[in-house]
C-alpha cells in the first residue's frame, strides 16, 4: 500500500510538472494563473498522499494552509492582471 501511494504521489507530482510548462509558455496571463492554480491543487493532493505515507497528520495542515493561500494568491493575480489589462489607473500618484 505504501509503495502504491508513493507511486501515486509521484505520478500526481509529474502531472503538476507538466502543468508548469503552461506557466512558461503562456501565452496569456490567464494561462499562467491557471497553471499556478494547478500547481496548488496538485501540490495539495501530493501532500495529502504524503501525509498518509509518512503517517504525519500535520502535513494535512500544510495542505490546508496551501489551499487558503493559493486562493489568496490567485485573487491577487486576477485583480492585478485585470486592472492592468483594462487600463484602469490605480488611485495613487
Amino acid at each position, binding site marked *: 500500500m505504501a*509503495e502504491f501511494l*508513493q*507511486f501515486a*504521489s*509521484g505520478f500526481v*507530482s*509529474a502531472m503538476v*510538472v507538466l502543468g*508548469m510548462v503552461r*506557466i*512558461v509558455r*503562456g501565452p496569456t*496571463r490567464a494561462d*499562467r*494563473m491557471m*497553471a*499556478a492554480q494547478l*500547481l*496548488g491543487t496538485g*501540490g495539495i493532493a*501530493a*501532500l495529502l498522499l*504524503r501525509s498518509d505515507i509518512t503517517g*504525519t497528520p*500535520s*502535513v494535512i*495542515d*500544510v495542505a*490546508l*494552509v*496551501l489551499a*487558503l*493561500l*493559493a*486562493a*489568496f*494568491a490567485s*485573487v*491577487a*493575480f*486576477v*485583480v*492585478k*492582471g485585470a*486592472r*492592468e489589462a483594462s487600463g484602469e489607473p*490605480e*488611485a*495613487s*500618484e
Partner: protein
Amino acid sequence: MTSDIILDCILAALVLAVGCWVIVVRDSFAAAVGFVAYGLLLTLVWVRLDAIDVALMEGAIGSGLTGALLLRASSRLGAKEQSAAAEQPGVMLRAVAALFSVIVAAMLATAVLYLPDPAPTLAPEAAANASATGMANPVTNVLMAFRAMDTMLEKVVLLVALAGVWSLARDRFWGARPGPRFRSDPKDPLALLAQTLPPLGIVVGIYMLWEGANAPGGAFQGGTIIAAMWLLAVIAGLTDAPPVSNRRVRLALIAGPLLFLIVGFGGLWLGEAFLAYPVAYAKPLLLVIEFAMTLTVAVTLGLLIVGPPDREGAP
C-alpha cells in the same frame, strides 16, 4: 529506496529550473506567477525534508504573501517597466558580478560538502528539555523559550520594515490610508469569496496558533493566514485599509514586542534573567505572548503588503 531519490532529484531540478526562469523572464507579471509556483515547490521540498513548521511558513509567506507583494510592485512599475528592463549594466560590471557570484556559490558548496559528520547541533538538548515549557513542539520551544530574544527582536525588525515602507510616502500623504480604494461589486464571485473565506481563514489561523504548542504551527503561521484573509477583504473592496495614523492600529502593531518586553523585564525583576519564565507560569505566559504576537504579525504583514499611504484626503 530509489523512487524516493528519483523524486527528490526531479523536485530539485524543477526548483532550479523555475528559479532560473523567474529571473530570466521579461514580463514582471509572469515572474510573479513563477515566483508563487517556486514557493509552492519549496513547500513540497520542506515537507520532504520533514521540516513542517518551515513548510507552513513557506506556503504562507514565501509563496502567497510575497507573491502578492511582488505583484503590487509590478503593477506600480506599470508603464516604466519597459524602459527599466531596457537598461542594462555594461559587460565589465556583469562579468565582475558573475565572478563574485561564482566565488560565493563555491564557498557555500565547500562549506556544505565538508560539514563535519555528525554536524555540531544543539537539537538533542533542545528536544530533551521540552518539559521546561510543557509544550511538545521543539520548534516552538526554541522560538519562544530558549531563543525568545531572537523572536522578540524579529518582531521589532518587522516593525522597522513597516516604518521603512511608510517612509516611502510623500509628505502630503503622511497619515493617510494606504493603497488604492478597491471597488466592490456584490454580484462578483470575488465578493462571495471575500465574504465566505475570511471567517474560515481566521478559524484556521487561530487553530494554527493553538496547534503550535504541540504540533507544527505557531504564532507566525497563524498571523500570516489572518493577514492574508484581511488582504482578501481589502482587495474585494469589502473593507478599507485604515489610515496609518490610527491609534488602535499602532497599538496592535506594538502589542507583540511590547508584551514580550514586559515579560522579559518581569523575568529580570523576579530575579532570574531577562526573558526567564517562572516555570509554573511558563505555558500560560507563552500563550498570552503568542496571542499578542499573532495579532502583531497579522497587522504588520497586512500593512506591509498594502504599502505606503498614498491617498488624497486627510484621515
